[in-house]
């Protein structure tokens, strides 16, 4: 495995008394894409919350490029180069498209090999956002809002990009566009965790697969290996 970009080690997390993650461990290699799969309520989004510092785990640690980030606030985790495209997009609806991008702008880390993301490079990737850069974000379509959520995350010049169900609620044509963008980001060398319920989308692009089932890691593999082993995914994902 390449250098570790992100690792979750023996994470136990709770919402109140509800134990939602039990001893969850997985690792994302540098410049790789990890597909995190599972049914509704399996704990995928909770893994994202724990990684971003939105939910403190009771046990275990989160490490980003060798630095422990467990217990850090979300803004400190963002400063470590982790960005999140959240489930439901959660763009800042009262801000314009450009403002959504500007508030998330962060200089790239010294020695970064990638060209920095600025508003213009985001607009080059998503021309539709460029056309609507003065528009209030609440007035964008669902697909445009998803593009904005991705662009906003990229403005942080992340080393690790977490994408939580970016295809959710989008028309098939827009899903294809979003997936093409994700492919490009992967090819640019970004380390990505792609959370999805739909395994077909993930198997096409991910290097590694982790499947969660009721808050535990059920499978760690690769798409090819899963195919070869003939693992019964319906057992973990319910639909396939």
């Amino acid at each position: 495995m390449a250098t570790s970009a992100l690792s979750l080690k023996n994470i136990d997390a709770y919402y109140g008394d509800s134990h939602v993650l039990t001893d969850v461990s997985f690792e994302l290699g540098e410049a790789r894409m990890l597909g995190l799969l599972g049914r509704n309520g399996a704990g995928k989004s909770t893994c994202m919350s724990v990684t971003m510092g939105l939910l403190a785990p009771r046990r275990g640690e989160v490490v980003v490029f060798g630095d422990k980030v467990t217990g850090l606030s979300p803004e400190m985790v963002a400063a470590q180069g982790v960005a999140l495209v959240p489930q439901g997009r959660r763009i800042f609806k009262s801000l314009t498209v450009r403002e959504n991008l500007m508030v998330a702008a962060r200089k790239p880390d010294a020695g970064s090999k990638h060209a920095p993301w600025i508003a213009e490079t985001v607009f080059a990737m998503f021309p539709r956002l460029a056309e609507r850069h003065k528009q209030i974000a609440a007035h964008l379509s669902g697909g445009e809002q998803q593009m904005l959520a991705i662009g906003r995350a990229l403005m942080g010049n992340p080393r690790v990009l977490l994408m939580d169900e970016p295809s959710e609620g989008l028309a098939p044509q827009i899903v294809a566009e979003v997936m093409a963008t994700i492919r490009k980001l992967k090819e640019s060398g970004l380390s990505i965790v792609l959370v999805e319920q739909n395994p077909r989308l993930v198997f096409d692009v991910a290097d590694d697969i982790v499947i969660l089932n009721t808050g535990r890691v059920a499978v760690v593999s690769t798409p090819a290996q899963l195919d070869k082993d003939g693992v019964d995914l319906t057992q973990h994902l319910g639909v396939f």
Partner: protein
Amino acid sequence: MNFWLVLTANSVTFGGLLFLLSAGFSLIFGLMRIPNLTHGSLFMLGAYVGATFVVGLLGFQLNFWLAAILATLAVAAVGALAERLLLRRLPGDQLAQVLVTLGLSFMAADFCLMVWGGDPLNIATPGGLGGFVRFGVMVFPAYRLAIIVIAIVVAVGLWLLLDRTRLGAMIRAGVDDPDMARVVGIRVSQLFTVVFALGAGLAAFAGIIGGPILSVYPGLDQDMLPLALVVVILGGSGSLLGSFVGSIIVGFIYNFGQALLPELAYFVLFMPMLLVLLLRPQGLFGRHVP
């Protein structure tokens, strides 16, 4: 005819003063979800601190505007301290925030009574604004017009800050979705302190600016706080435009209510608030917060 015109002009003046008071209150409630019941005290404290310099209670007198700036900065610092030392320890716990800010307002009232005594302090109208301005048949005090101008200048300044700067966009992002704002790297905690200090400073500025009209007296805080609450509920929390429109509406309701139905002045004042709470709980310009 003159009576109605004067009443209208007075309503606009009072609305301007209320805007200075309530803009900060609205911002603090909109961004931080803190129902800051010390806001009336910050208004009164600003008035007392400013009066101290203007009247010369320390043995020297300062120019009214310099005193206003000093009072604003001093009370902004007090607000920042209260936020950092107390309120940030109670995130999301609105009952505790209400109790703590209410307690602080009682302490501030006692502190003011102890330091400045129970007699009202009268603040002279600043030099050059003591006269009257004539509009046709109508004569209007120059200082009241100055308050309207100041309120408009502050409103435009706040609008530029919130709408045209990156800091303003960050504040609005924090109002929209505080958790997500933190996720994209915005230090919402520091923004909270800045916003609280700004709100406290504005309240203090309103206090000293309103001094020549209202004078400064024990209980001024309790007179002003309900008005700020009504403004924010009418206009919608976190909305600058809502604060402005709400202030002007309350300015009119308050003045006309006092003049025409003095026995029912508070009924007239709070009835629109009740209706807004029932029919549009987010206020006229606020967004629905689930």
